[in-house]
């Protein structure tokens, strides 16, 4: 099916994003410089052009996201990337894209906020990513890598999902994933059929003209469109995924995503070695949220501790998932602080002691 026997390289997560986009057949990139994701446009400015694609350094993230909107309306694979302040500026176009059912991949290497914040890692954009982010009632799909290999793999997945559902897909990393260097196996997926023939704009030759828009003024038309979008989001739920680590007999389940999920995992492993019945659920898709995995564990009597690099956002989704049987404790690392494995172990030990 896929060819996983590629070259092994030692690269940053940001570069893995770029290579993943190339492997996925991305044809156009639009972006504006911002730390900590600059290696993405920097590597694509040559690699994408060498591969016959188009690279544009836009005048702003507003423009970059609208260039993406234009490019994907013609059915080609295209992307943009940025970090938190820039992603805020992209919300206008993302809302229009969701409303007019356009695909497209947006990478956010989350940095500390609010405002200009800092350039260190953080997970403060969880709400913005999973609740639509811009105006109106819509959702983007959100996937969160925790390693450089996943950053590569998930770019390939993100393009497939975006075109499968004709919906924007967000890849939510952070400064840790973007700046960290790891060995990555580059593999080439088989070409997917994006099924764009029925809607792409390529000139009304031998067919009726086509229109891509998000304006619905006829009586009942917007309500119908919102019903249609809702049905699509319901359909997306089957894409929900999580990594479950030592959850089979766990009494305490830690829930953490992205780089926090990875750091929490080493804490969980150490506590297991010390004989504690602790496990980890790492949501891989943040929207759709892996509700069933958590609900099943709650039904089995597990307790929950959500750990995030923010002041408490994903914990809402965890609580909603487990609400029939349990609640979730929360531990937050402040955006601006950089946690180590011990920092995340302390609240776990605390929670184990509470019973």
């Amino acid at each position: 099916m896929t060819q996983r026997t590629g070259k092994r390289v030692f690269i940053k997560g940001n570069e893995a994003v770029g290579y993943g986009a190339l492997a996925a057949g991305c044809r156009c990139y639009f972006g504006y410089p911002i730390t900590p994701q600059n290696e993405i446009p920097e590597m694509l400015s040559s690699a994408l052009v060498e591969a016959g694609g188009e690279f544009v350094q836009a005048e702003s993230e507003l423009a970059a996201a609208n260039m993406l909107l234009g490019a994907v309306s013609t059915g080609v694979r295209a992307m943009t990337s940025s970090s938190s302040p820039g992603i805020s500026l992209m919300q206008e176009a993302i809302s229009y894209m969701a409303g007019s059912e356009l695909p497209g991949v947006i990478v956010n290497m989350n940095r500390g906020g609010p405002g200009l914040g800092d350039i260190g890692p953080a997970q403060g954009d969880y709400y913005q990513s999973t609740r639509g982010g811009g105006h109106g009632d819509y959702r983007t799909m959100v996937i969160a890598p925790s390693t450089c290999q996943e950053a590569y793999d998930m770019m390939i997945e993100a393009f497939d999902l975006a075109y499968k559902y004709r919906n924007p897909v967000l890849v939510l990393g952070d400064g840790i994933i973007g700046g960290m260097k790891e060995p990555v196996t580059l593999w080439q997926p088989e070409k997917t059929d994006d099924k764009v023939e029925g809607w792409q704009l390529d000139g009304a030759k031998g067919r009726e003209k086509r229109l891509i828009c998000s304006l619905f003024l006829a009586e009942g038309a917007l309500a119908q469109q919102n019903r249609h979008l809702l049905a699509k989001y319901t359909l997306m739920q089957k894409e929900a995924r999580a990594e479950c680590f030592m959850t089979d007999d766990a009494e305490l389940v830690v829930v953490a995503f992205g780089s926090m999920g990875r750091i929490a995992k080493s804490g969980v492993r150490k506590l297991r070695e010390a004989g504690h019945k602790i496990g980890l659920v790492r949501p891989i898709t943040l929207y759709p949220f892996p509700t069933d995995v958590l609900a099943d564990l709650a039904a089995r009597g597990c307790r929950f501790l959500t750990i995030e690099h923010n002041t408490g956002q994903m914990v809402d989704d965890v609580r909603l998932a487990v609400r029939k049987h349990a609640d979730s404790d929360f531990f937050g690392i402040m955006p601006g602080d950089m946690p180590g494995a011990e920092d995340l172990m302390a609240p776990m030990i605390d929670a184990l002691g509470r019973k």
Partner: protein
Amino acid sequence: MAPDIDSIAPTEAVADSIDLTPMPGETLVFDKPESLRSTLTHYCPGCHHGTAHRLVAELLDEMQLREKAIVIGSIGCSVFIYNYLDIDAVEAPHGRGPAAATGVKRARPDKFVFTYQGDGDLASIGMAEIMHAANRGERLSVVFVNNTVYGMTGGQMAPTTLIGQKTTTCPGGRCLEREGAPIRMAEIIASLGGVAYSARVSLDSVKNIRAAKKALRRAFEVQTEGVGFGFVELLSGCPTNWRMTPVQANNRIRTEMIPYFPLGVFKDVATLNTEGE
């Protein structure tokens, strides 16, 4: 009153609503271009958006561009251009047309891509996008309708509103000290490196409409010939928000607008090249 977006009759996916076939005994003396659909428009009487649409449609026919054209509509009274032109269309957010068009053209360099924008859309909220698309020399054509007001939202002050002109948000008349001077886009665009053609024309009279078509043709040609960015500013009437009859509105273009917004070609690479020889 101006047609508020809420009160405009729903027009998406409208079928051709007018039958133009001559009745028995009638001879067809004036036909519509193939690229223009046979449907009623929502424009006010005397509005020049319809005139501009027709010129664009005639050129799409004459230059055989209809089957490879993609229009990026703007947010303003012309938002429904996609119902009136028989070509592929994508809607961009307010002011972002040139960015969206850049994406379309970069993805599909073989297509004919143009934006159609109002003065609020292009010269206010979308100033950064138009300047940079022009400066990059994107192979795009821009049809810019300057009617000195925000038509769709009820006639508020635009960046092009003339000094002393009364609007709903400058009821005492635009004041130079407070609101600055009206922006002359065609001249500004002409000053940018990537621009192959920039001109200002007017839709107030038959003679000027003929000249407008010539300018639009050049703005389209510089794209099809791959030379650079093509821009045409069309001085247009908005009788509704100017509180005028269509005839008064045409007169206002001549007596008030043209003296401030001079007509002419501000850049044409063709003539630049010959001058250089």
